[in-house]
């Protein structure tokens, strides 16, 4: 079980990294990172968020057992995905606006409550709920067990396997010289990507079930 989850994560984790990249990369680059500790802290909190999401799903799938078969149907998956995309899109737009237009009333209010730490954690949770095919494959292995705890364990190991692909994010502090320009670009792209996720991958996607 442990080995299987770990190996599945290692073999298919690049897929998870690909689907998380549009959120993780602009977010991490948009924050002011002075050294490796801050870098590691942000990435660590994001990973924690992903772990919480994975373990949560693992518990549910394991506990629901056979009932989960019906709910992890690709169509239903996408509707759930639409919800998490809407939330992550909204968060990205809010933080993007806050960075770029700090004078706006909404941005001032948002800045007062926003912290890079919990923002990082939330990004991790939302991207962790992104049900990509390897995730689905992992879930289908856990169906028949009918046991929430083993589901959590399986997904925790799956998480460890996929996390290997996020290691490059720990090297962001090395771009110190160019960081200001990159940060400006990342903050602008947060708004664009946020709008894309909110509208195209979130609202329209969820409303149409399948956007066609």
């Amino acid at each position, binding site marked *: 079980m442990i080995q299987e989850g770990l190996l599945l994560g290692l073999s298919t984790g690049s897929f998870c990294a*690909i689907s998380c990249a*549009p959120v993780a990369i*602009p977010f991490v680059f948009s924050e002011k990172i002075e050294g490796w500790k801050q870098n590691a802290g942000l990435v660590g909190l994001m990973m924690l968020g992903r772990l919480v999401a994975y373990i949560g799903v693992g518990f549910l799938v394991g506990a629901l057992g056979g009932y989960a078969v019906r709910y992890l149907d690709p169509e239903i998956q996408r509707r759930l995905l639409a919800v998490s995309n809407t939330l992550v899109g909204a968060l990205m737009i809010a933080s993007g606006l806050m960075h770029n237009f700090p004078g706006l009333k909404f941005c001032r209010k948002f800045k007062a409550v926003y912290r890079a730490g919990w923002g990082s954690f939330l990004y991790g949770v939302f991207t962790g709920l992104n049900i990509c095919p390897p995730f689905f494959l992992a879930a289908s292995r856990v169906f028949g067990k009918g046991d929430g705890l083993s589901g959590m364990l399986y997904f925790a190991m799956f998480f460890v396997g996929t996390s290997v692909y996020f290691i490059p994010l720990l090297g962001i502090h090395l771009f110190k010289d160019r960081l200001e320009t990159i940060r*400006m670009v990342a903050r602008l792209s947060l708004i664009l990507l946020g709008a894309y996720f909110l509208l*195209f991958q979130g609202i*329209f996607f969820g409303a*149409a079930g399948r956007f066609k």
Partner: protein
Amino acid sequence: MSAKVRAFFPARGALGFSLPASFLLTLSLGIWCYMFIVARSTGTARIAAWIVFSGIMSLFFLLLRTGQVSKYRRVFFVAIALLFFPEFIAQLLETRGTMMLGAGEILNNDTPYCHIVTGVVFLPWLVTGKVVFPAGTGAIASMLIIWGTATLAIGRGWCSWACFYGGWDDGMSRLARKSRLKIGPANKKIRYFGFAMLAFVALASLGTLASVYCDWLCPFKIVTEFGAVDSLRSYAAFLMFVLLFFGLVIVLPFLTRKRFQCMSFCPMGAFQSLLGKLNLYRLRIDKDKCIGCRICSEACPTLSLSLPEESGGKRIPIVTSTCTRCGECMTACPNNAISFGYVFCRGKSLFGGWRERLEGRKGAAAAALRRITGTLDELLSAHALFVYSGFFIGMAFLSAFGTGTVNRLIRLVINGSFLLR
């Protein structure tokens, strides 16, 4: 050459070339132009080919002789854009019967592949090894070769000399005499927005393994081809294409006299800026001639001449990586302080030292050597080789589409039909 003969030709501009150099460069381009445009055509297409050939040769010669890079380049560049789309659309109507992309084209990986896709699908290709665009591998490779060699040759100059879309907003940005919406070089975010767009489309395409820019954001779909409009999704996408085209390509450039689409929206432009570092050419501002008037940075249509922080003394603009080598700053500069130069090379030209040694020496041989080295210096100068490369690449696109459009116009007059079959 006698004064009468010289008088026949335009006068040499401050950045212009001598007559021998202008002729030699034009002849050199002319040989390739003849081979790729004229030699391959027959019938009315040959008449069209000669028209296009003459146009290219005239513009190139005038650009070289007068040194007015931006003026003649723009005519050439706008012509590429305006001659491209009628032929492209006509070919679609003849083969497919419609501008709309059908399921067949997608199923058979037959969708035409344009250079903008490269910047969009680069990340997914790097990670997954697959191109997330339904084009044939031959078509992709073909465009990569053209674009790759062009990038090596002219870097981001692609955006002002070769791109068959750029002529639209370049032309629109020069229609109005005055800008109605002021956008100045101080606005860094607008210049860097293009990089944000690149990051957005590259990451979104990576995350969804689809070509997001082509699916939703390309303003040029309505002058080339677009997906079948038969569902809510496709209606929404089509509406976006129309709004983006009229907003970013027509209206904003007209109002601001800036190339909005190319400067702040096109992901390929930003991609070219990054890759353009590989290029051998740079825009040089002569610090001695520059008087710090900053007219060049106001004139730049892509806000690529940024101003350094105030520090006392004259503020000499800094040429950023987003410069498309369009030549507007050269024309605007009152002191001709701006020119094309080579990377790592400043100061004397290749044969400058030899000419200095020959200065003062009398005799026909010395005079001839001075002329020959002078001409060689001109021919091997950054200015000459850059504009030559730019025109060659633009001519390559005109050979494929330009003659086609002119041929169709001729046939329209003769037969009353724009389509050939």
